[in-house]
């Protein structure tokens, strides 16, 4: 099926009762925000700075509310149906990776209920960014993993590839706006996908890395790559597969809540014990942990590398700590 671009605003309007999020410019920053029409949607080549994980796993979320001094605990209400429009395949794949954590053993109802009510309408990348390397880690500019619908920009229309029942339901309500796609449309889309994949310029070979990393525990490579690290949260907060959080009780007057907020394993207090002991006292240990977590521990637990090659950490690290550079050093290091 196809949707002519001039019908995009109407398409969005067919999603009543659903919150619609899409890439939007907030000042000079591109992030996922509620959209009411096609005008403020920004479906340009670049990916958003803040990944759509901010919708599924909000930076700050209230878990419980209570009045101080009482034990009457209230939990937040029902989630509403949400559509995420214009999600890049890497970010959608990332959500399926993070799903593992929130359903591991004990299920996290906050995340899972929200996730169940989200429909992901993806947009194939036709112009990968300089630091994208999705094809090296099991993804691609037109990967369908995790998406309910995949849109490809054919110039004056979007080709819609309906992938799941949720995607079908979504398109049902817009059926009046959609027109049939031809075999030529499909071919054109496929050519665009292939061209995009061939334009990806940065690569890595992660094949041996999960098995090799445990052997490099004492390597000096961790001192080298962490020497310039500022210990900020940019790489972790803007990574679509990062999921660590802090829990805090916050009180204003007599109203109190237990909330969770994003946290970063790169912060020095992340593993600081109340006694003052810190098992990861310097940036070296924390950098080593981060790389091991994404490329080794996560593989041990869930059989997938917790990295989708979106390139945000490389683009936004203020001191040019480059994940692909680290991986290539890991590859070169003798066991």
């Amino acid at each position: 099926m196809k949707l002519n671009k001039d019908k995009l605003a109407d398409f969005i309007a067919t999603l009543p009762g659903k919150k619609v999020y899409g890439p939007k410019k907030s000042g000079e920053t591109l992030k996922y925000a509620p959209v009411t029409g096609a005008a403020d949607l920004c479906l340009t080549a670049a990916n958003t700075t803040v990944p759509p994980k901010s919708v599924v796993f909000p930076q700050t979320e209230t878990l419980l509310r209570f009045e101080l001094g009482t034990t009457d605990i209230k939990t937040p209400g029902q989630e509403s149906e949400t559509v995420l429009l214009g999600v890049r395949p890497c970010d959608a794949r990332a959500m399926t990776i993070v799903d593992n954590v929130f359903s591991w053993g004990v299920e996290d109802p906050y995340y899972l209920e929200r996730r169940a009510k989200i429909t992901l309408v993806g947009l194939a990348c036709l112009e990968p960014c300089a630091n994208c390397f999705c094809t090296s880690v099991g993804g691609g500019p037109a990967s369908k993993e995790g998406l309910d619908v995949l849109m490809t920009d054919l110039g004056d229309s979007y080709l819609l590839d309906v992938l799941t029942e949720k995607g079908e339901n979504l398109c049902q309500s817009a059926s009046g706006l959609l027109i049939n796609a031809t075999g030529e449309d499909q071919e054109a889309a496929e050519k665009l996908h292939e061209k995009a994949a061939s334009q990806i310029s940065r690569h890595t070979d992660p094949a041996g890395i999960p098995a090799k990393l445990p052997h490099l525990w004492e390597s000096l490579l961790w001192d080298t790559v962490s020497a310039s690290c500022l210990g900020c949260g940019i790489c972790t907060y803007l990574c679509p597969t990062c999921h660590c959080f802090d829990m805090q009780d916050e009180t204003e007057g007599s109203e109190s809540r237990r909330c969770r907020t994003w946290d970063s394993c790169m912060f020095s207090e992340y593993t600081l014990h109340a006694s003052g002991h810190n098992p990861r006292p310097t940036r070296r240990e924390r950098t080593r942990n981060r790389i091991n977590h994404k490329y080794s521990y996560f593989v041990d637990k869930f059989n997938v590398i917790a990295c989708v090659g979106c390139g945000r950490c490389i683009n936004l690290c203020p001191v040019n700590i480059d994940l692909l550079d680290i991986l290539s050093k890991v590859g070169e290091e003798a066991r």
Partner: protein
Amino acid sequence: MNINPYNPHIATVQDTWYETYGDRCIKTFKVVFDDEEVRNNWSHLPGQCAMIGILGVGESMISISCSPTEGNFLRFSVMRMGNVTQSLHELEPGDKMTVRGPYGNNFPVDQWKGKNIITIGGGIGQAPLRPIIEYVKANKSEYGDLTVIYGARTSADLCFKGEFTELGKSTQTLCHLSIDIKEDDWPHYVGFVPSLLMEVNPSPENAIAITCGPPIMIKFVLQNLKKLNFADEQIYTTLENRMKCGVGKCGRCNAGNLYVCKDGPVFSYATLKSVPEAFA
């Protein structure tokens, strides 16, 4: 909402007393769940922990220091360290605390049936070992001999003091206490726990050794257990780390690829020896 693991149960403090005094004093709390259904449905095994806390302050992961065989209540022994434990220490009988759990894995007490059990504790480390002792006591026909080795810096720093006299009376239990520095009126061993271990010289034959205490003590106890020919699979310990969610989601309590709240806190030495962060 489906079962919400972050929504705690409310428990009332039935009784509370100090085990030790001073800056890092230890207080034990005996608590009972307010909700009858929760009381009746709760089950835990030695080794498991719970997130206990106070609404408006926060939570801490504390090991459950009673055996399920002791009754329909929970015991926690808490050392005063930071914000949450400080607020917990202010609780008196009748006050409420939040409890969620049980979390973590348990000591494989089923697998240990028929074996001789040796616990080696130091200071507050005796808290997760106490449920093993009580469990083995309550099921004594199913286990071999029970040897309890426990020490602290001074006699005032020993936890559960009153319980050792009773323990010593049982014919199946050998109880060895030590303090680091000589004191008048102290009839037992003076020295560090690892040295007491060598004095006691337990046989590794059909035995399981479980140790918990300060990292430095654990290091030397492990060395000595190996000297006494205990196999890696016969040695168990518990790890601790900073925790927030307690259910393997917030990401922070890992030692290598093991999450202490979920894969642990109970680990055999066979597992831990290849995990470099285990003793960080």
